[in-house]
């Protein structure tokens, strides 16, 4: 098992490097400003906060875990917490010599959101989503600036009953290392 793991780790950067792309770093982290807006079940919910991401890179793929803490900005005040997992694919890369690159990312993710309204209502629901991102990645120092736009799908309620969902829009602006 150990041999297999070592072989996979050794092979991954070689494969990624073969097509000329700068592979994702084996381990990275990022902190982003998050803005979310949705109209699920006829109720508008807007929130703003911060998202912390921890990621493991493997060639053109990056597997990430993220946590978000935000404040509701809509008519009801409250808070939002979200934890999620996702995968990011380095779709295209325009390299600027050995300095860095402009990159196109496509990502898919899932998670669990907890919304708490100060009035007392609390909802916990799962979500799935997809997104596109534009990143400026420098190699030395190893810094990434990424802007992502995501569509998030979740089951919502309307007057206490399940209703078809209007997906949420999430924008992230962050720096990573």
């Amino acid at each position, binding site marked *: 098992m150990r041999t297999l793991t070592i072989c996979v780790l050794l092979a991954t950067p070689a494969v990624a490097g073969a*097509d*000329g*792309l700068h592979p994702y770093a084996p381990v990275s982290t990022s902190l982003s400003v998050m803005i979310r807006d949705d*109209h699920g079940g*006829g109720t*508008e919910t807007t929130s703003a906060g911060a998202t912390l991401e921890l990621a493991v890179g493997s060639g053109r793929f990056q597997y990430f875990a993220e946590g978000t803490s935000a404040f509701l900005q809509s008519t009801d005040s409250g808070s939002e917490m979200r934890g999620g997992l996702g995968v990011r694919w380095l*779709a*295209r*890369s*325009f*390299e*600027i*010599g050995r300095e860095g*690159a*402009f990159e*196109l990312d*496509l990502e898919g993710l899932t998670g669990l959101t907890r919304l708490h309204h100060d009035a007392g209502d609390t909802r916990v629901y799962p979500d799935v989503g997809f*997104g*596109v991102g*534009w990143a400026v990645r420098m190699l030395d120092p190893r810094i990434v600036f990424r802007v992502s*736009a995501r*569509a998030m799908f979740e089951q919502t309620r*309307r007057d206490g009953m399940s*209703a*078809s969902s*209007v*997906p949420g*829009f999430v924008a992230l602006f962050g720096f990573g290392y």
Partner: protein
Amino acid sequence: MRALIVTVVLLVAGRAQADGVDLVAKLGFRVGYGPMSFAHRSVSATSIEIGVEHPVFGNTRVFGEWEWMWLSERDPDQAMAIGREPTHGSGQRVSAGLRHALIAKSHHEMAWYLDGELGGGAMLASEDTLGTHAVPTGIVGMRLGFDFRNGDSTSRVFETEILVRALVTPRDGTGLLVGVGMLWGD
């Protein structure tokens, strides 16, 4: 209609000064926003688009796009004033067409361009109270942008553009889409 005619004339008869057009296949995305009519209601559409392009002939490329859209009432206060809930929906739109470089100029590793585009597509969108609607759409637009080239890069071209597009529908009139996009060329 006048814009359509002008664009067709430019596409067919225009002699593009296309000394800087990079005719390579491209993949990219766009974030867009604009007013449109949906089921006779005035809404704003915010969208994320993923698109591909491929050169076909001369300075002309064929493009295909898939777009996810959020629809929201343009004037919620007016809707509330007449006693109805503001419209909030979502949908998808697929589009295909041709874009042609009308003007393009290059300078070293950089170029800028003005393209005209013509095409069509279909939108499938829904809203809780209005239901689901399928709407055919004609598109005519202009794109202004610039690109960087690097022959040593895996994507040899990186393009950034601003798009202004009219969306012509048979029953809901003409909408508008303004977007900022980026494309990576092979």
